[in-house]
């Protein structure tokens, strides 16, 4: 659980993905579905970051974009930036606070951030995965893998298990066929399956076993990072425990990092080191696991935690029942996107979008209830103080314009 800028595997900055809505006679561009609207966090080596939110909040899209299965609208994901580069990124993004970087939303950058943007551009050319191509991109594919939610449709029904797991090796032309199949047998053993299962079709297996085959396939190219897209949501509880144990073991053995996307907070708590809560494409809160669960600051996080059914009939806890339904990501409410359902809504919430601020050590929240960030003297600089509001620098006097790193 490293903090700070050492051993950062992936640094996601201001990632946005807008899907255009086409309508009218000529399929003109009417609007955007803002699936992911500005998320930023870091993933360190051997760390599990849990990405939590309800359906429609964009976490699945975020996982795909981080892997470059979908091209983002703006933002960057830096792969293995060195500690010096991380420091520079902090400084640069801090300096760009409030101004759109990277051509976001079609706005022109202000003159005094042109320098910063140029330097950012240079760093992006070297480290951002969206600017890689050719051989480098192919090599990257092996390092960033994904395990899907639905064990029933994520394995091709017409291929034998042997071919399914050997496919990544085949694509990258690794070894002869015999060597590939040997490796497949090793991988299946690593996830706890009998190598005899090579010779079967996926439909002969149960959900948990299929999920294990999916994990074996993801491990084929020795990745650094795996996006786990709700890996246990379609499985039963006891099987879920098996899979989670396997994942934990593999993380230790192979030094993997995970992005664990889920809407089951209890499961996320059991596996993650850090949790990021998303709502309607924006980050609501981000903190280490225990900090988040013991002290949830954002009202949405509090409601989520209160809504989880606890398998204990005597447990009485405060019920925070949110009214209404999740708004559509094509037409998010103005200001704070949560204000239509928030139990503690204030007048400012419907006008201004709250910026992401570090209000406690390593605990980042975007809520008007916490308008002040901790000052620079306390601890690590705010890593994501770029607010998506045009008035960002005006509403967050505390940590907005960060001084240059010493």
């Amino acid at each position: 659980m490293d903090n700070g800028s050492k051993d950062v595997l992936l640094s996601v900055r201001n990632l946005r993905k807008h899907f255009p809505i086409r309508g009218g006679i000529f399929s003109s561009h009417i609007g955007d579905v803002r699936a992911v609207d500005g998320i930023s966090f870091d993933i360190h080596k051997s760390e599990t970051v849990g990405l939590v939110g309800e359906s429609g909040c964009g976490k699945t899209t975020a996982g795909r974009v981080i892997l470059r299965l979908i091209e983002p609208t703006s933002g960057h994901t830096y792969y293995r930036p060195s500690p010096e580069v991380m420091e520079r990124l902090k400084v640069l993004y801090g300096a760009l606070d409030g101004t759109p970087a990277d051509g976001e939303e079609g706005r022109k950058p202000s003159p005094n951030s042109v320098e910063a943007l140029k330097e950012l551009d240079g760093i992006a050319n070297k480290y951002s995965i969206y600017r890689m191509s050719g051989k480098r991109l192919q090599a990257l594919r092996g390092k960033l893998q994904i395990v899907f939610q639905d064990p029933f449709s994520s394995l091709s029904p017409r291929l034998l298990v042997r071919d399914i797991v050997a496919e990544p090796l085949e694509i990258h032309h690794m070894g002869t066929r015999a060597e590939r199949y040997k490796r497949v047998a090793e991988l299946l053993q690593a996830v706890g399956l009998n190598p005899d299962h090579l010779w079967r079709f996926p439909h002969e297996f149960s959900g948990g076993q299929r999920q294990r085959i999916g994990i074996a396939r993801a491990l084929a190219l020795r990745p650094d990072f795996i996006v786990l897209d709700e890996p246990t949501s379609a499985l039963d509880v006891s099987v879920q425990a098996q899979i989670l144990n396997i994942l934990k073991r593999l993380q230790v053995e192979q030094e993997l990092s995970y992005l664990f996307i889920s809407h089951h907070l209890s499961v996320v708590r059991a596996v993650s080191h850090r949790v990021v809560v998303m709502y309607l494409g924006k980050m609501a809160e981000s903190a280490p696991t225990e900090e988040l669960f013991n002290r949830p600051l954002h009202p949405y996080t509090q409601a989520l935690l209160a809504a989880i059914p606890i398998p204990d009939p005597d447990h009485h806890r405060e019920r925070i029942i949110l009214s209404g339904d999740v708004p559509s990501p094509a037409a998010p409410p103005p200001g704070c996107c949560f204000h239509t359902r928030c139990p503690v809504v204030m007048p400012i919430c419907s006008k201004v979008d709250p910026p992401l601020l570090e209000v406690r050590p390593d605990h980042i929240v975007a809520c008007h209830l916490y308008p002040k960030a901790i000052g620079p003297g306390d601890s690590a600089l705010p890593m994501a103080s770029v607010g998506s509001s045009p008035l960002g620098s005006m509403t967050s006097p505390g940590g907005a314009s960060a001084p240059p790193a010493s």
Partner: protein
Amino acid sequence: MSGSSKDETGATQEKARWGLPTLSKGRPNPQLAQLKRTLYFLRRNTLAIVGLGILIFFVCVALSSFFYPGSNLQMTQLCGTYPANTNTGCICTYPQGSVSPGPGCYAVSANDPSLVPPTVSLSPFGLGPLPLGSLTVDASGLYFFNLMAGLIKGAPWSLGIATSVVVSGSMIGLFLGSIAGYQGGKTDEVIMRITDVFLAIPGLLLLMVILATAGALFHGLSGHLGILILAFIATDWPIYTRIVRSQVLVTREQKFVEAAKASGARAGRIIRKHIVPNSLYPVFVQMSLDIGTVPLGLAALVFLGFNIYPSQYFPEWGLITAKSVSETFIKSILTLCQVGNCIFPWWQIFIPGITLFLFAISVNFLSDGLRDALDPRLRR
């Protein structure tokens, strides 16, 4: 986990070849198990079995036609009809005891295999049905016509043309449809608009246009079988493109395609290995349907008067039916029925027609049964 109690050891041997751990007892071969399952469901469908039976019968007839008298291609083409006066090597037989139809014909015993039942005749009015399988004279008196031989000789032609048309059309359709479905965007638009153009024109009309144009442009090509097949392929491929594209649109959203992309696979590989194998079932069903419609289309063209065969006595079912119909009707209209001898030879129209009908419907039943057996949702 299949219910069969027999174990296949093919898997064991293959595993030993790769140097992988083998089981003490053999495991059932999964691909074989799938085939068995499909056959089981096909077996349970009576209509499909009937269709399959009739189709197998036709295939056997087609295969046995190569042993029918007549040595080289020229002979084969003409042996459906036996020119009475020229020496082409075809043997002309008639049963002993009846009158010889023409010079150069041999009398054979009634049990000779060259006399093939049933009794059919294309004789002009008044002569009535002749004894089993004997030759008959056509209107000009120059050519003899044996309906049964014509049908037997025609079986490989009908089947062959149908199969080649269908296979080529489906391959073109698979190729174009998978590209269109997978790439989307402009490629998709372009391919689908071309497909729509071809589909908007009724099949028969398109066929006629193509054949007429080819015949007009290249004089040696009218009556050329190759052009005929190409014309049919041109009318057939759009349907496959449509079918394949719709399947591809569904398959490409599946998670395993995304997983392959995540592993770095490129479009060609994904299409080849993932999308096409999963899109094959509707293509098989459509193929089995089309095999039935091609001979019907050929018959339609001949009825409309198109000159699509190398010779007017080419042994193809459609041609035989057309000739039978035209000859019979013309005769019946032109010839006044003399006293007592007015028998309308309905069998001349009925028998070739029913051959076509049986062929088409057997293929239909088979394709229905195949669809039910292959569809993963309908299976139990």
